[in-house]
């Protein structure tokens, strides 16, 4: 029984991690419909920024997180204006080509600036170690991640469903022309949405590096995971992304614990099965077009 609860907790914690690193993509790919394979680049930027802030500027882990979010979001605005915007209405293939180009540039750039090795990430004392609850050892950092995930989900759901800005985003995404005729500045809305998605990517990267490690190939190494979570969840749905992340997380951990021989297959098999059952994602909006 204990091991079952333990596995469940680990699974949920892993799901939380998957959610944190993918939720930004759920916004850029899902809401805006841009095939942004370079999501990992923003996550990686977040990671390196965090490491640099902590080791060079001496800023603490917690205060560094909002800085990372803001800096990555601001930085992404430059890319949005110069590279992404011209391709909003282009074919998906062109968007793929562009984002792969960005990945190449970023990988080589980071390699040049920081070298190819793993970066040390020091998390504060109070976040390392475990709490013993009911005979279960619960990792503090994982609990922290779960809290962050809950906060992000609530903030996003509230922000996208209940605020004026959220309404504008949904209107712009659903029908650009109508939104424009209603006086919404669609390009501004897209810009801000893109910044939000990238900022979240950066934040996710910063939070993920303690578990995932950080080297110049971060962007390509975890690309499959980002896509997996977002597509299974249903692009554009924050709840769907959360649900998919938790489901895949629990399936993966349970599989690895109970049938370790199949360790490598589980997450991919789970993805294929889920996609065959829900071709538009768990909570995806069925596009009638």
């Amino acid at each position, binding site marked *: 029984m204990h091991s079952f609860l333990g596995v469940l907790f680990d699974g949920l914690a892993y799901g939380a991690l998957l959610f944190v690193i993918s939720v930004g993509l759920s916004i850029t790919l899902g809401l805006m419909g841009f095939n942004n394979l370079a999501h990992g680049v923003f996550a990686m930027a977040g990671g390196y920024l965090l490491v640099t802030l902590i080791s060079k500027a001496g800023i603490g882990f917690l205060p560094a997180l909002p800085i990372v979010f803001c800096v990555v979001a601001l930085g992404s605005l430059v890319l949005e204006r110069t590279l992404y915007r011209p391709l909003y209405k282009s074919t998906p293939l062109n968007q793929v080509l562009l984002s792969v180009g960005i990945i190449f540039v970023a990988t080589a750039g980071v390699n040049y600036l920081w*070298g*190819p090795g793993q970066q040390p990430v020091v998390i504060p004392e109070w976040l390392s170690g475990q709490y013993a609850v009911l005979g279960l050892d619960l990792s503090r*950092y994982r609990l922290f991640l779960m809290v962050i995930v809950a906060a992000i989900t609530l903030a996003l759901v509230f922000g996208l469903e209940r605020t004026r800005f959220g309404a504008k985003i949904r209107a712009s995404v659903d029908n650009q022309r109508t939104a424009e005729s209603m006086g919404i500045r669609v390009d501004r809305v897209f810009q801000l949405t893109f910044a939000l998605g990238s900022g979240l990517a950066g934040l996710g990267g910063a939070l993920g590096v303690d578990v995932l*490690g950080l080297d110049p190939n971060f962007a390509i190494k975890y690309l499959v995971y980002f896509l997996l979570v977002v597509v299974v969840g249903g692009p554009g749905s924050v709840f769907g992304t959360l649900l998919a992340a938790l489901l895949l997380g629990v399936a993966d951990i349970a599989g*690895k614990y109970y049938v370790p021989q199949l360790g*490598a297959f589980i997450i991919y098999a789970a993805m294929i099965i889920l996609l065959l059952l829900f071709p538009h994602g768990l909570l995806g909006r069925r596009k009638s077009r």
Partner: protein
Amino acid sequence: MFRIGFVFVMLLCGILALSADQACAAGSTIKIGMIAEMTGSFSDFGFNIVNGAKAYMKEHGDTVAGKKIELIVKDVGGPSPEVAKRLAQELIVKDKVDFIAGFGFTPNALAVAPIITEAKMPTVIMNAATSIITTKSPYFVRVSMTLPQTTEPMAQWAHKNGYRKIYTLVADYGPGHDSEAAFKKAFTKLGGQVVGESRVPLKNPEFGPYVQRIKDSKPQAVFVFLPAGEMPVAFMKSYNERGLAKAGIKLLTTGDVMNDNVQDALGDHALGVISTHHYSVDHKSPENKAFLAAFAKIEPQRPNYMAVGGYDGMAAIYNVIKQLKGVIDGDKAMAAFKGMKLNSPRGPVLIDPATRDAIENIYVREVKKIGSHYYNVEFETFKAVKDPGK
């Protein structure tokens, strides 16, 4: 229409010309072609190997026996045998090199075996660690190590120090399987017992369930082999988070896991971990000091055992050039390699004349914090260990 055809042909020719032969007649230079993993997920491999080689050239000058040494570095971009084979072929046919060197990965080395045999090209393996490589061509010589070579001493040390029940955890791929088998064989032969084994997928950001299984089966120690990179970092974090050390489960690894240049990324997590390997940055000898100084002139990053592989490979090649007085012939060069002794930064190395593999000391080390950095500190030595995989 023909005009378009003409343009097309011109275009193709133009592009092809970019990659056309630039080979110039060799005479006063000796060319060494290096095939290394400079980009991709394993760019760390190429980075260390090539910079290790460059460090040797920096230290000893680029002229030997009156010949200028030219290093031609080619990026193979990860484990991709067909590219390795193509690069080797081009190095031989176009660049007319005298030696080929490098190889972080086994498949890259194996793929070039037929052509180096056909071309009688002396080829120095600077890292790839599967035993069989040197049996695939008489023109292979390896200056690094093999996996069983560093694994077996770990089993012996564990048994000597009273460990009887050990759990093994390896990465689920060829070298992992080899390491698991080598450890199990050596350890059970001595009377120890492997109480459980896990194979972890190579793409695995989450070690939780595996570490939990180890904890549940309560062994005295766990033996771990993972490829250098992000896996050891993730594993060590999980190992500590779940309090295996506190539960009295000792961690024993090969040196790949306790790779010198991830030490600082591991930080406190790795303190006290025991590993066996042929090289540590902390090795105390004048040769190592010279190596570290030379490397620091090229790159500020801390080198690791692969850099030593590159460094020693160059040393071996320099020795051969000296012996042959600058006139390189494949068979003579191979004869010169056999039985060669090197005063390596890792300690004395002998190239086994029979297998063309390195015979070297394997050290038992423990991770300690010295100043603000972390090092593998050697405390016991297995002298002149041969590759037990053959």
